């Protein structure tokens, strides 16, 4: 838990200068910020407005995932839409039912946007804005308050649904014009019926997102690690998308991913446990070949075995003498396996390390063999699935 909170502190401190929290606290809206690179994709900042609305204290929400506000009546399809937007690193606006701490449900307009690293286009945070929808609005005044998803749920327009579901604003406008002809229906607010946001609520959501993004941008200028609300360049070579990061972040053991197609086969992903085990900082290992783990007493035939395993694209398990940053030695019980992407081609090699002196320290009762298998399995499944999207994201 300590390390998790540490990571959360860092998530903000590394990017933005010290007064960023105060500046965010001064903003009036209800919003949260999350970090997709931390395991569990937790909330790293929650605004005062958000705490007031949700009735939770800051400690109760920091470190938790935004799904903690959902409950039995939350429409699962809306949840899925948010999940997909995160996976595809794009903005979304949707109506969703949430619950306050006291258990009362309320409809809100949720707008979310990724925050990019200006330098390499990687997603470093997400900002989510929660605007409660206060009352049921008349159909005709709903304007753009209805989003694609809710439109899709009306039975009446089945024949037009394919158009309606598309993102095109023009189509949406055309649809809404037609929609308003049918008049309104002043039914009571019911939790299982989607509620609609008014123009004002819509505008509030946009303003809140923009304000938050500009505070974050401003305070990142001062550290020189710039962020921006629009993706400025395509993902840099060898960088993993945040969705793959989220998946890999669930794995609790030490491993690294190596990109075999880049010169000198650098590490492109390193789990925190790996850093802890070896004493290096993340920036000291990313982009480097694994050979820094070896040292004078490392057996060269074992190193040859690793090279052979990579050359022949075969998995292998070996025991190798490695060195930490402080030059102390440890026996590394190492498993290497190729990992294929959706086209069936090798995308990475995964290297799973077990410090032999701690080999039996597994409280789960899983053998070290099985622990290595589980890392390989989880990595293979994640890489395969997530490369399916990035390869063909043209829909």
């Amino acid at each position: 838990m300590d390390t998790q909170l540490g990571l959360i502190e860092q998530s903000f401190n590394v990017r933005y200068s010290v007064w960023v929290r105060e500046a965010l606290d001064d903003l009036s809206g209800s919003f949260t910020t999350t970090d997709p690179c931390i395991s569990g994709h937790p909330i790293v900042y929650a605004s005062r407005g958000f705490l007031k609305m949700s009735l939770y204290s800051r400690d109760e929400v920091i470190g938790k995932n935004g799904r903690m506000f959902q409950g039995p009546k939350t429409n699962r399809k809306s949840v899925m839409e948010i999940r997909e937007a995160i996976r595809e690193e794009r903005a979304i606006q949707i109506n969703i039912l949430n619950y306050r701490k006291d258990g009362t449900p309320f409809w809100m307009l949720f707008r979310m946007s990724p925050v990019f690293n200006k330098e390499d286009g990687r997603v470093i945070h997400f900002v989510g804005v929660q605007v409660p929808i206060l009352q049921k609005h008349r159909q005709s005044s709903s304007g753009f308050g209805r989003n694609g998803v809710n439109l899709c749920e009306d039975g009446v327009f089945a024949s037009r649904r394919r158009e309606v579901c598309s993102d095109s604003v023009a189509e949406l406008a055309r649809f809404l014009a037609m929609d308003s002809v049918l008049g309104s229906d002043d039914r009571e607010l019911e939790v299982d019926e989607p509620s609609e946001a008014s123009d004002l609520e819509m505008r509030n959501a946009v303003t809140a997102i923009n304000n938050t993004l500009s505070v974050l941008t401003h305070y990142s200028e001062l550290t020189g690690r710039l962020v921006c609300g629009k993706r400025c360049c395509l993902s840099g070579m060898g960088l993993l998308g945040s969705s793959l990061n989220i998946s890999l972040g669930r794995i609790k053991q030490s491993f690294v991913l190596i990109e075999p197609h880049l010169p000198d086969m650098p590490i492109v992903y390193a789990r925190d446990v790996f850093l802890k085990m070896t004493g290096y900082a993340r920036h000291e290992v990313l982009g480097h070949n694994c050979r820094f783990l070896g040292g004078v007493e490392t057996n060269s035939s074992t190193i040859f075995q690793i090279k052979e395993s990579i050359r022949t694209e075969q998995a292998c398990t070996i025991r190798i003498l490695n060195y930490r940053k402080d030059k102390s030695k440890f026996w590394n019980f190492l498993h290497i396996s190729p990992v294929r992407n959706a086209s069936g081609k090798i995308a990475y090699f995964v290297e799973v390390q077990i410090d032999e002196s701690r080999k039996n320290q597994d409280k789960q009762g899983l053998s070290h063999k099985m622990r290595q298998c589980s890392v390989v399995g989880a990595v293979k499944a994640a890489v395969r699935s997530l490369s399916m999207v990035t390869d063909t994201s043209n829909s």
Partner: protein
Amino acid sequence: MLRIRRVPTVVSNYQKEEAEEGARQGGGCGRNCLNKCCILGAKLPLYAFKRVNKIVTEKTLLGDENKEPPVDFLDSLLLGEWEDRMQRGLFRYDVTACETKVIPGEYGFIAQLNEGRHLKKRPTEFRVDKVLQPFDGNKFNFTKVGQEEVLFQFEASEDDEVQFFPNVPIDVENSPSVVAINVSPIEYGHVLLIPRILEGLPQRIDRESFLLALYMAAAAGNPYFRLGYNSLGAFATINHLHFQAYYLAVPFPIEKAPTKKITTMTDGVKISELLNYPVRGLVFEGGNTLLDLANVVSDSCICLQENNIPYNVLISDSGKRVFLFPQCYAEKQALGEVSPELLDTQVNPAVWEISGHMVLKRKKDYEEASEENAWRLLAEVSLSEERFEEVKALIFEALACDNGDNGGVSQSFIEKQDVTPQSVEEVEALNNGSHPSMVPGKQECIVLL
């Protein structure tokens, strides 16, 4: 009698054609199977899940957050054991080497080229006009698989905690439910859940088994780990009760399809109808407890199978959303009503295909895969609008009638623990046994918001 010829999928290395079968070394029948001959002293890992009687919201989990389960069900146990079997060479091919893609289009159908899945197998005749058929111990069934193909036992925890034991003798008296590999996987981690394997249950949904499947989806705790069920006549090939499951972190087209609410049951289960999807079907979600959702869905399935209507079921979103499709493709096929082009693709439209994950056997079909082609195939699977309305009426009639004849079964899951009901509704739900009825007045379709 209606029959179709198809190449059966080989799910186990022991599912050989009679002639190929030969005795091996070792004790028992020589195959180290799960039958009486070999099972004595056999041990397997055991995962005991928590019998949560509430739909698990983050809120209820919040209190437990510091108490992590002893082993992560999906990543550490299921995928780990699966990778171990892969390293041991138990699969017929490396599914991660099979090319796969999302087909451009509104729904994002998923296509996989899998040329190895149907090799070396002769077409067999299948009877498709009887959804319920008695179990036949002489035919291939899961007690005949080798123990190495079984990953772990899956059962409800005796106390209120998730438990994991790496090595537990199989308790023959208690007929454990097990998770086994599918040696012809359609994705990495493809497994079979076989409820009470030693009881020799035919492919037929009952409340307790369906609840078990929902618990498995919940235990995985990952919305991309889905379970599926095919009835006989809807492309199940083995008449021994089983669900399939795998992990694929991509939304399925079916999950994206728009829906229209039909009704909300008294126990909070919302039933909707799929709109603008090639296969007509029902969607179930919500409910005050996991048990509520399980009961409404299994009662619907029971209604279909008792009326001899073939169907498929998809459990998605960690057990929070369930899709049910009555279908008629096999019947059409047997009557010669399916076009030769569609038959040529040899795609059997079972639960995964219906959900939008198409496994194609020919490179040509893979390269030409389009939303239009997928749609055309699936449209053949669907009941006609008229027939679907009739079937829907049957289901709602079954759900509405409070006969309670099979009400007690799944209660055993919750009776064992001290249930402290959370709300009046829950007390009622428990007292009434089971059969929820519809809320009057909530039944009309929503015309406009």
